[in-house]
């Protein structure tokens, strides 16, 4: 079948099972949009307000579905507007296929209108990128991009398609969709060494990361914790893999992790790190983290082994497969009173949340939402204090229900991501926790949520300051609040109304409960402006480079 390059692209998207994409039209992608117009019964295209929102939407879509998210942008500024979103997906190992148009090949390198070297720009933040220079290779390039985005450790892949490649004719030969392969074999010797290391341990601690969510290994993880009767602390990326009420779960560990998670870690003689890369935010002082205990590191990416933390033993492979192999091999630890020790820590006074929940504050607001959501409802966040409060106080019950920017820490991530997640879940209820700082970055996407009648509820924890920076200024900069006190007078509820959504402002817990009851019953988007104190802090906090000895429990 002779087709134009743009039509081949759309055919391959359909072939790969893509039914929803995000993007923004423009001069260098006119032919792709023409092909999408003809295929609109097969592929839904969501036009966002800004290309950044479109990448975050594709990212949110990928996180909740586990399938690559797809984003399209035009050349030049359209392409550069994707950069933050691509970097965000790269840091959090999110499968993403970004498609950009570019000027025709004859115009490349001449600083033509809306020309930018997007493959050069995105080289360090993609698994790989392509510029299509031969239309006969277009289909296979797109297929390779999908395979690469989803395989191994997932990540973003960009395809830059010059305009003349979109209009040239080529022969299209359909192919079967690329399925995610896990053909990586697990090295038997490293498994044996891992088994021996666990067998010699009395006090193992499972530190579980985003790899467990990606590899769909929740059940295996919980089985391992049962078998070893040992606690689980997670990274922020790993949160949704463990139901909050699982008896082994101690919550998130790290800078803003719970006391029990950090304390138990410091008492362990073995850390079993699964699908995680030991970010500095999660480890604190690296020397103290490693001293006095062994580390078993399990990850699909060999380059993560010994990169940040030197392991005693390591197993490279898909987390689900490795955990199954360990369980099948009868993994056991040494008998000890470890479970009782952990229980003591978990029920200690230090482990209780410092923040009360009998009046309106971040904790009670998040708990009020939590009480009303179903286990599989998706919660997205922006970045800052509200994000950590959500990580601490929201009760995640199912994998892939927490959509947050972990590695890059992208303020403005949330709205696009919540929209993408909502589409990924068939337009089901989605809640975005954000703050006045983050919300102002990409609030334009409210218009997208309105256009598509998405049941996205935006909960703005509004403290009128850039709270996380203010918290650091309070603790480490002697209250010099440089440029973090915002003199904005945004009327959020009226703003939501102006966009065509429903807005609320609440100053008490009772008012919040009433607003939630109403807003969660709506079919379209809504926003609740929740007034909180500007000096509420995210606690506990282990200062950067610190240890459990430095933990700050009270504000």
């Amino acid at each position, binding site marked *: 079948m002779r087709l134009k390059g743009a039509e081949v692209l759309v055919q391959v998207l359909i072939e790969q099972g893509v039914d929803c994409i995000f993007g923004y039209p423009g001069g260098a992608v006119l032919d792709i949009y023409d092909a999408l117009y003809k295929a609109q019964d097969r592929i839904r295209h969501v036009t966002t307000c800004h290309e950044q929102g479109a990448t975050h939407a594709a990212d949110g879509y990928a996180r909740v579905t586990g399938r690559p998210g797809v984003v399209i942008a035009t050349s030049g500024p359209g392409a550069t507007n994707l950069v933050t979103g691509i970097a965000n997906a790269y840091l959090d190992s999110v499968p993403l296929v970004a498609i950009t148009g570019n000027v025709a090949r004859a115009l490349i390198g001449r600083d033509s209108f809306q020309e930018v070297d997007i493959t050069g720009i995105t*080289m*360090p933040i993609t698994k790989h990128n392509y510029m299509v220079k031969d239309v006969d290779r277009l289909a296979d390039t797109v297929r390779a991009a999908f395979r*690469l985005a989803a*395989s191994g450790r997932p990540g973003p892949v960009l395809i830059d398609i010059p305009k003349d490649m979109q209009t040239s004719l080529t022969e299209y030969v359909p192919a079967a969709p690329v399925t995610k392969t896990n053909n990586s074999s697990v090295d038997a010797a490293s498994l044996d060494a891992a088994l021996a290391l666990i067998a010699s341990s009395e006090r193992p601690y499972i530190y579980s990361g985003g790899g467990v969510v990606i590899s769909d290994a929740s059940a295996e993880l919980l089985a391992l914790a049962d078998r070893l009767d040992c606690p689980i602390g997670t990274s922020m990326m790993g949160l949704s893999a463990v139901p909050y009420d699982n008896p082994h779960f101690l919550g998130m560990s790290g800078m803003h992790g719970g006391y029990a998670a950090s304390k138990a870690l410091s008492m362990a003689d073995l850390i079993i790190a699964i699908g995680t890369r030991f970010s500095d935010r999660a480890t604190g002082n690296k020397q103290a983290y490693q001293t006095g205990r062994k580390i078993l590191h399990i990850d699909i990416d060999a*380059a993560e082994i*010994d*990169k940040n933390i030197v392991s005693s033993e390591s197993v490279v492979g898909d987390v689900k497969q490795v955990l199954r192999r360990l369980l099948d091999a009868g993994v056991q630890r040494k008998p000890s009173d470890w479970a009782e020790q952990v229980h003591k820590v978990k029920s200690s006074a230090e482990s209780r949340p410092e923040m009360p929940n009998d009046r309106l504050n971040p904790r009670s607001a998040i708990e009020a939402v939590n009480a009303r959501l179903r286990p599989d409802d998706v919660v997205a966040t922006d970045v800052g204090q509200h994000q950590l409060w959500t990580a601490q106080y929201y009760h995640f019950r199912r994998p892939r229900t927490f959509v947050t920017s972990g590695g890059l820490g992208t303020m403005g991530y949330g709205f696009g991501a919540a929209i993408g997640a909502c589409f990924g879940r068939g337009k089901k209820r989605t809640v975005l926790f954000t703050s006045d700082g983050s919300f102002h970055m990409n609030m334009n996407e409210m218009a997208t949520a309105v256009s598509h009648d998405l049941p996205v509820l935006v909960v703005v924890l509004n403290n009128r300051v850039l709270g996380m920076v203010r918290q650091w200024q309070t603790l480490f900069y002697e209250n010099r609040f440089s440029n973090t006190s915002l003199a904005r007078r945004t009327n959020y509820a009226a703003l939501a109304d102006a966009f065509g959504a429903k807005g609320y402002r609440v100053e008490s817990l009772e008012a919040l409960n009433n607003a939630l009851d109403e807003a969660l019953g709506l079919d379209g988007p809504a926003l609740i402006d929740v007034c909180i104190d500007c000096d509420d802090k995210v606690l506990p906090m282990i200062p950067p480079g610190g240890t459990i000895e430095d933990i700050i429990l009270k504000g």
Partner: protein
Amino acid sequence: MEERFTLSILVSNEAGVLTRVSSLFGRRGYNIDSLSVGETENPTYSRMTILSRGDVATRDQIIKQLQKLVDVKSVALMPPDNTVLRELMLVKVNAELPTRAQIQQIVDVFRAKIVDLSPSSLTIEITGEKSKLDAFIANIVPYGILELCRTGVTAIGRNSNILTGKEDKEI
């Protein structure tokens, strides 16, 4: 402890591959002391030789990070005692009539070659390991080096050690 090491890397013979490899070194703060690249017996591959420095942990990270690049088909750490290492250097040296004979002697001792001359200078070509080239420079410096360029080290395994590319690796 920091040490020098030599990496041989088979990469796809495509546009942008040199940038992908060198930008990986740049953004992760790895050293490149020398880099050379050229076609191989297989026209779809190029072979790069990179001389780098770092402790064992850094060295291992470099190798693993390189292996994550789609265009990198194979990476080998070349053992110093089982590798042929060569570098080519061209040196233009001041050579007035009274000193020409002395320079010719040095050239002979190092088994170098004079490849061009002018009334006041000689251009010398010399091939060898890095240490030989460095020693040659030390000897020629007193005469006045006008210009010098080196290709960077290239390396090949001794005996039947052959670097082959893997096309179906999973990343």
